[in-house]
């Protein structure tokens, strides 16, 4: 059995529907071998990806947001879990939980909307710190999954971001202001945490641009 034909068929699924149709038709018409066709299709996929990376959005999503944010959010996830276990004040726990969800959701939303066709790279950039921390995590009393609490709201945010590019100005404004105020009220002194605020304000800018 020729292995190249199913590989070729699978590879063309990485192309858009119309392009897949045209490419498979062209290959059939040209009577090229499946291996030659596979090379051609890979060439096209690589060129398509390379063209996407000529804009700033995939870079910002993968290396400006997914990579640093997942690293910081893992630390914050552990912080929230510790607050819960040690029985810290209710206000502190609720505000930290709100911040964790808001940061993760807005970050996921912006990653999804900025890098629809390069999402694989953003996911890979996010997985790197996750795997690194999971491997080195020696939590005293906390299970390892505490590191990944931020993933649930982030995934929901990514899914929403893939469906739409922006949210309503009013919602974006309320979200950004409440996160900023809460950060100040909670006394976020760790400078790195302020990196996590840019997705919320980016949503405001995008919503404002649309109106």
């Amino acid at each position, binding site marked *: 059995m020729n292995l190249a034909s199913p590989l070729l068929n699978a590879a063309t699924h990485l192309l858009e529907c119309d392009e897949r149709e045209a490419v498979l038709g*062209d290959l059939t*018409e040209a009577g090229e071998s499946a291996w030659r066709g596979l090379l051609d299709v890979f060439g*096209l996929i690589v060129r398509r990806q390379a063209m996407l990376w000529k804009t700033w959005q995939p870079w910002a999503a993968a290396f400006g947001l997914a990579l640093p944010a997942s690293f910081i959010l893992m630390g914050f996830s552990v912080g929230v879990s510790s607050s819960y276990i040690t029985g810290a004040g209710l206000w502190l726990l609720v505000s930290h939980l709100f911040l964790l969800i808001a940061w993760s959701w807005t970050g996921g939303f912006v990653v999804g909307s900025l890098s629809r066709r390069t999402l694989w790279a953003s996911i890979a950039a996010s997985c790197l710190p996750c795997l690194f921390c999971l491997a080195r995590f020696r939590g005293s009393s906390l299970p390892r999954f505490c590191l990944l609490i931020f993933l649930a709201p982030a995934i929901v945010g990514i899914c929403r971001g893939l469906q739409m590019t922006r949210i309503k100005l009013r919602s974006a404004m309320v979200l950004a202001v409440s996160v900023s105020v809460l950060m100040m009220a909670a006394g976020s002194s760790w400078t790195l945490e302020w990196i996590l605020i840019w997705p919320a304000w980016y949503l405001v800018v995008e919503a404002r641009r649309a109106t």
Partner: protein
Amino acid sequence: MLGEFEYLLITAASGLGEKAYGAAIREEIANATGRKCSLGALYTTLDRLETKGLLKTWMGEATAQRGGRAKRMVRVTAKGAQAAEAFYDAVTRVSRGAAWVVDRAGRASS
């Protein structure tokens, strides 16, 4: 100013007229240049030229010869024809004094 491959693609599509689509353009370019044209180069250039407004593409009908798959049809726009003409004129002008052009002109006149 067009690039060399962009010019080849527009000229091949223009020559094919109503029958211009991916595989036909590829074959035309391969016949003219003696080199195989990759699908990647063809389709990314088609996209670029369409974005610049030099071409228009749409999905055509499916044929049995293509395993029931649709064609990506191509039509050169007026702007595309203008750009190709400008490229051709520039190449013709710059080639006037070149040895191979002078030799060929000499052989043709003798």
